[in-house]
């Protein structure tokens, strides 16, 4: 009896909190039909095409106005993957070669090129349409997830060498920083885009927006390689059932 009452006491405030937050989000996000732009947002909306050459304002903010923040986020992912790969490093883990049935494998083989095409479209058109390096990179990493589940992790390691993935990640990060240094050499500051002399092109065309497509490609490679490494490192220990966390983890 005490159990149910204490649970109710916990549950009712949680319900009220969720409903309240939902109500205020709904009131703030849905009801105003005339969005009022602040001065910074208005500047972005009106000046993005002339200042960066990109037609996707979000990509322009991520890779031009606030490109240094994107570099910081990429560093966060890099550090995380380094930590996880270091934690799960070691050769004592076995890799599986079994995978799922024949039908699933054939169906998967038909789907992989389309997933690759979709990911590269999202990365390459990041400055034109919604999307960008991060989203495309995550879609690239889902190929690793599917490979590991459908074919087993030995196939994944044979198709995409883990060392090559780490090389790709590191070189993509270096490419990002190198493009930023080119901006510095142009006399306009780190990661400067059009002011450093990169050609802007016509907004709306594939070859436009200066460095933004290249930064998108770098971030896409980097995120794809690092998340793929993350998943592969985690699933490697899954397939050795004798290995596992020590039992005292569960005693609390």
């Amino acid at each position, binding site marked *: 009896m005490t159990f149910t009452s204490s649970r109710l006491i916990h549950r009712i405030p949680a319900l009220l909190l969720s409903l309240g937050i939902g109500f205020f989000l709904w009131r703030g996000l849905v009801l105003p039909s005339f969005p009022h732009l602040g001065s910074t947002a208005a500047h972005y909306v009106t000046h993005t095409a002339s200042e960066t050459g990109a037609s996707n304002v979000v990509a322009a903010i991520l890779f031009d106005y606030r490109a240094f923040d994107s570099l910081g986020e990429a560093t966060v992912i890099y550090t995380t993957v380094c930590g996880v790969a270091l934690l799960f490093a070691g050769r004592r883990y076995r890799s599986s070669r079994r995978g799922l049935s024949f039908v699933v494998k054939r169906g998967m083989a038909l789907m992989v090129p389309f997933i690759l095409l979709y990911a590269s479209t999202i990365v390459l058109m990041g400055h034109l349409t919604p999307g960008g390096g991060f*989203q495309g990179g995550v879609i690239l990493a889902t190929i690793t997830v599917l490979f590991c589940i459908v074919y087993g992790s030995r196939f994944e390691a044979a198709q995409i060498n883990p060392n090559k993935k780490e090389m790709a990640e590191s070189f993509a990060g270096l490419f990002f920083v190198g493009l930023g240094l080119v901006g510095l050499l142009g006399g306009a500051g780190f990661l400067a885009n059009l002011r450093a002399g990169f050609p802007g092109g016509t907004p709306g065309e594939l070859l436009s927006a200066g460095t933004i497509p290249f930064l998108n490609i770098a971030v896409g490679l980097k995120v794809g390689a690092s998340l793929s490494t993350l998943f592969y490192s985690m699933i490697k220990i899954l397939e050795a059932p004798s290995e596992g966390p020590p039992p005292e983890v569960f005693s609390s």
Partner: protein
Amino acid sequence: MMSLPFLIFLHLFLVLAALAASEARDMLSAVIALSVFGILLAIVFALLQAPDVALTQAVVNSGLVTSLFLVAYSQTRKRPPRGPSRKDEDSL
């Protein structure tokens, strides 16, 4: 503009999915509820004219977070299912 009832429906189910994810006893149901929550949130983002955020939300939450959680779930050892007696929780 989007129809208001549909948005209200989505928000209601967002709250329900979040409650289900936090209150579920079974870890697997919590992971699946979180995945449903992510997809609903992606739809809400797309309706609110934020396609970039919607794409990120859909891809990360349905593609990566769910699979990472499932790997972690199958990696860890499970407790035996609790019987009808709840003595261990009352003693806390």
